[in-house]
């Protein structure tokens, strides 16, 4: 469970997050949508402390990650992240991309790390690519490997920042399928996305951000059928 309370983030004078409060239950899938520059990425990146919150608290599994005494590295091991541009390690093979952190961070032996890795590659349909270097993969394949890499740490929460925005249209589906399957396994997920169809189908809740403010927080049926705010209505009009 993730509990965010009155989260603020400033870059110098620029106030990017203006007091976000929300709770993501265990096993819940939350879609985060909103116009460009509204603070979606910043919000997500605060959750695993890639950005340091200016004020407010974030509890992950009842641990206050904004507390100075909390071990950030330990927190990050439980929170997987998938980026728009994959960020696979180009000098490592697909298999090594998956086994690196479990071995070097969690201290897993090679055998158990590879066992987990092969299981995940199978799950994302890329078993036969284990020995390839990332440059030999298509965008969709890269993103599926990136998802598997994050899952290899066996995180409790997965964050996705526009995981399909850098993909050619024909590759979006294969990535969304993997995410849908993951959602069905009960993984807690926060997904920044512009894929409204996906959000509607897979998300349990939609968070609509605008100008650093959480404007709406409602189930997708409700959000897409009757957005309460004018800003969400305008946004959806443009998107659909």
């Amino acid at each position, binding site marked *: 469970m993730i509990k965010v309370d009155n989260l603020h983030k400033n870059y110098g004078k620029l106030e990017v997050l203006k007091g976000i409060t929300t709770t993501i239950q265990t096993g819940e899938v939350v879609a985060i949508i909103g116009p460009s520059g509204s603070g979606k990425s910043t919000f997500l990146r605060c959750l*695993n402390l*890639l950005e340091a919150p200016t004020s407010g608290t974030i509890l992950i599994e009842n641990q206050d990650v904004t507390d100075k005494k909390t071990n950030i*590295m*330990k*927190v*990050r*091991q439980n*929170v*997987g*992240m998938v*980026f728009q*541009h994959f*960020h*696979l*390690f*180009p*000098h490592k093979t697909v298999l090594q991309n998956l086994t*690196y*952190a479990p071995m*070097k*961070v969690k201290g897993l032996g090679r055998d158990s790390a590879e066992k987990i890795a092969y299981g995940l590659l199978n799950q994302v349909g890329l078993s036969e690519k284990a020995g390839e*270097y*990332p*440059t030999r993969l298509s965008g969709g394949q890269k993103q599926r490997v990136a998802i598997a*890499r*994050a899952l290899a*740490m066996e995180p409790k929460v997965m964050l996705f920042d526009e995981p399909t925005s850098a993909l050619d249209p024909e590759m979006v589906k294969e990535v969304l399928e993997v995410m849908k399957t993951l959602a069905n396994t009960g993984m807690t997920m926060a997904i920044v996305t512009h894929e409204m169809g996906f959000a509607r189908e897979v998300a349990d809740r939609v968070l609509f951000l605008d100008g650093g403010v959480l404007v709406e927080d409602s189930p997708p049926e409700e959000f897409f059928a009757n957005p309460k705010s004018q800003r969400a209505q305008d946004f959806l009009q443009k998107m659909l």
Partner: protein
Amino acid sequence: MNLDFTQFIPSMPYILKGILVTLQIVILAGVLGFVLGIILSLLKISHIKILNWIADLYTSIFRGTPLVLQLMLIYYGSPQIIGYQIEPYTAAILSFGLNSGAYISEIIRAGILAVDKGQQEAAMALGVPYGKMMWDIILPQALKNILPALMNEFITLTKESAIVTTIGVMDIMRRSYQVGAENYSFFEPLLIAGLIYYLMVMTLTFLGKALEGRMRRSD
């Protein structure tokens, strides 16, 4: 022009032994410079101001003064710095190592900064601690990109190493010069030295290209 190489044939083994001396100095200084370069580059990209400052000062001193001066300061200064006279050979390795460390640190720093910021974020998001991230993720990618520049530095080192002659190290240069003095004819032995340096540099260039090719496997 009358050139007579035949009279120098008996001296060839003597000159050629200088290759080992030169190679030893260049390789040991190269290793020292490389290790130092990595350390300095990490200081330069650190977020701790005083560390940036120390590394920048070091670099500016070693780049801002002549190498031959650094060589002589270390050699002739050793009794006053550490209390006893060091070997010319040691002074050569030290000064070349310390000097190339300054240049290599700039190359590595640029290489690290050129690695996509996303790599660091991906590693951080996986909970990889800073040291391991640098060593396993960032530096290997940086090194691959700067390999040509590093090879260049190594070649420069090989050529510049000829100035160790000035403190009496028995390298290719000094041996050729001595042979010239004995025979009252400097031109031919110096040409021979030139050819040896040239062949060494060509070999290094070739090895560098081969290594680069191997490192490009993942592209």
